[in-house]
C-alpha cells in the first residue's frame, strides 16, 4: 500500500491553470501531511475541481508543480495512479454493469486478480450499503446510490491518497452521514483524504485542516476553529422591516462588529459579534433608539458565507458567467 517515497502526501507549489483566457488557478501553494483529512472549501468556480483534476493526472498544470507522495503529477503520472483514488465531481459509473461488476472492473484495472477484485468489490458493496442493489445495473440506481458506488470505486485500489470532489452533493442526510463515517474510518486507518466541499459544516466535521479557495487562490488555511475565529465569533443577522432603514441598521451593527454585510434582497444585515453574544440586548436597544423596525433577529454559528465575507470582503457569489471579468481579477 505504501510506495515508500518520502515527503508530504500532497505538495503543491505555484500551480496555475488557464483555459484559454479563463484563469482557473492563479498560483496555488498547498502542503498536506500524510494521514489527515484536508478540506478544500470554496464557492462555485473557485477552482477546486481543476485542482483535483491536476492532482489526479487528468489535466496538466499550466505552470508550477505538484507531487503526491513524492511522485510528480506530470512526470510520474503512471506510478502516481497506483497510489491514488478519485471520486470526481460528476459520478463516473458504468450504467450497464451492476454495482458489483463496476467495482470488480475497477479492481481488475488495478491488477488485483479476479478473486481479490471480487473480494474487495463485495466488501465495499457492504460498506456502502448497496447489498440489495449489488446485482442490479447501475442505470437503475438513484442519484445517491450512484454517488456511493462512485466513492466505493475510488477505494478499490486501497489508495494512499484519496481525492473526493464534493462527495456528498446530492446525498440525503442519512447517506451523507454514513459517507462521513466512512471517511472518518479511512482517516483512522491512515489514508490521506483531500475533500472539496462548499459547506463549512462538512469541512468542519471531517477535515483537520481546511484551505479556503476563491478565484483560483488559497485565501486562508487553518483548522476549522481558526477559520471561524477569523469571522470573530457568532454572526448576528438582523432583518429590517423597511428597506429605507438598511443603511441605518448597518451603521448601528457596525458598532458591534467589523464589516457589517447588507443583503438588499432579503433586507438582512449581518455582522460577526466580536463584542460577544451578551451584546445582543444592547444591539436591540440601539436599533430601537435608532427607530429601526426589526422583523427578525437571529444569532448563528459562522457559515461558509460568513467566513467568505470576513476573508474576502465579498460574498461567495455563484460563478459569474462573464469569464472575461474573472480573468482580470
Amino acid at each position, binding site marked *: 500500500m505504501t*510506495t515508500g517515497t518520502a515527503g508530504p502526501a500532497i505538495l503543491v507549489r505555484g500551480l496555475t491553470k488557464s483555459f484559454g483566457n479563463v484563469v482557473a488557478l492563479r498560483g496555488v501553494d498547498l502542503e498536506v501531511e500524510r494521514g489527515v483529512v484536508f478540506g478544500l472549501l470554496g464557492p462555485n468556480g473557485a477552482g477546486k475541481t481543476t485542482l483535483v483534476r491536476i492532482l489526479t493526472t487528468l489535466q496538466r498544470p499550466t505552470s508550477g508543480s505538484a507531487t503526491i507522495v513524492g511522485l510528480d503529477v506530470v512526470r510520474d503520472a503512471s506510478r502516481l495512479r497506483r497510489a491514488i483514488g478519485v471520486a470526481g465531481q460528476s459520478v463516473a459509473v458504468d450504467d450497464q*454493469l451492476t454495482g458489483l461488476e463496476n467495482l470488480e472492473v475497477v479492481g*481488475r484495472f488495478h*491488477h488485483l486478480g479476479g478473486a481479490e477484485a471480487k473480494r474487495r468489490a463485495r466488501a465495499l458493496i457492504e460498506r456502502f450499503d448497496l447489498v440489495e442493489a449489488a446485482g442490479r445495473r447501475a442505470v437503475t440506481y438513484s442519484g445517491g446510490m450512484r454517488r456511493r458506488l462512485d466513492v466505493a470505486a475510488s477505494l478499490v485500489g486501497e489508495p494512499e491518497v484519496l481525492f473526493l470532489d464534493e462527495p456528498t452533493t446530492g446525498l440525503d442526510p442519512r447517506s451523507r452521514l454514513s459517507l462521513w463515517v466512512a471517511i472518518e474510518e479511512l482517516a483512522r486507518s491512515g489514508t490521506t483524504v483531500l475533500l472539496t466541499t462548499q459547506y463549512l459544516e462538512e469541512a468542519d466535521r471531517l477535515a483537520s485542516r481546511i484551505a479556503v479557495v476563491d478565484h483560483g487562490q488559497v485565501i486562508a488555511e487553518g483548522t476549522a476553529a481558526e477559520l471561524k475565529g477569523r469571522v470573530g465569533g457568532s454572526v448576528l443577522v438582523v432583518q429590517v422591516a423597511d428597506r429605507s432603514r438598511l443603511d441605518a441598521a448597518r451603521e448601528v451593527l457596525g458598532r458591534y462588529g467589523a464589516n457589517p454585510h447588507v443583503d438588499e434582497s432579503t433586507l438582512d444585515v449581518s455582522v460577526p459579534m466580536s463584542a460577544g453574544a451578551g451584546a445582543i440586548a444592547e444591539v436591540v436597544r440601539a436599533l430601537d433608539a435608532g427607530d429601526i423596525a426589526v422583523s427578525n433577529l437571529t444569532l448563528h454559528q459562522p457559515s461558509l458565507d460568513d467566513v467568505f465575507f470576513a476573508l474576502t470582503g465579498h460574498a461567495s457569489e455563484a460563478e459569474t458567467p462573464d469569464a472575461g471579468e474573472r480573468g482580470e481579477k
Partner: protein
Amino acid sequence: MNPSLMTRVRWGVADTLVMVGRNLLRYVRLPENIVNITVSPIMFLLLFTYVLGGAIRTSTPDYITFVLPGILVQTLLFGGFGTALGLAQDVQSGLFDRYRSLPMARSAVIVGRLIADLLANIFVAVLMISIGTLIGFRFGGSVLQSIGSPAVGILFALPAAAIFAAVGLTVRSVEAVNVIGFTLIFPITFVSSAFVPVESMPGWLQPVAEANPFTLAANVSRALALGQDPGGDLVGVLIWTAGLAAVGVPLAVRAYGRRN
C-alpha cells in the same frame, strides 16, 4: 519500483480483455445496440435487392450477388461510426475520467473497444450472409474464398474504426460524432463500387470512386464472393489496412490519453 516490461505487457493484455468483456456486455444488455447494428444493413439489403436491383445493370449473374458484398463492407465500415459514438459516450458519461485515473494501460480502452466492435462486426457479417442466402445470394468460390470475402471487409473496417475513434475522442461529443459520421462516411461509402459499378457514374466522379480505398475493399470482397481472383487489389487492401492501422490506432490512443 517500476514494473518490468513483461509485467506491463501482461497487464496491458489483461486490461484489454477486461475492456473487451465490458464492451460486449454493453451489447448484450442494451438490445438497441444490436438492433442498431443489424436493422439498417438488413433494410439496405432488402431495399437494394427488391427496389433498386432491377434498375442497376451489373456484370454479376444477379444484383444481390453484386450488392451483398458491397452492403456488407459498407455496414462493417459504418461500424466504425459506432466505435466512435461509444467512445464519445464514455467520455461524456465521465467514465473515461475514471479509467484515466486508474493504473491501467491507456491502449486497453481503445484496443478493447476495437476488438469488441470487431466481434460485433463478425456477428453482423454472419447474419447478413445468412439473410442474403435466404433471398438468393450464393458464394461462387471455394470455402476459403467464401470466408475471405467478409473477412476482407472485417479487416478493412478495423483501422477505419480506429480513425473514427480518434475523431470521436477529439471532438468528445456524441452529437458531433453523429454529424461527422453522416457527412463523412456516407459519401465515402456511396462514391465507390459498393452499390453500383463505377462505370455507371459520371466521368468526373469515376476517378474519385476508383481512388477510394473503400472501392478496393468492396471489389476484393465481391471478387472473392464470386470465386474470382482479386489479384493485386487484395495486396492493395492489405496495404491500406496496415497503413490506416499504423496511423489510426496511435492517433486514437493519443487522443484518449490527452490531458488538457
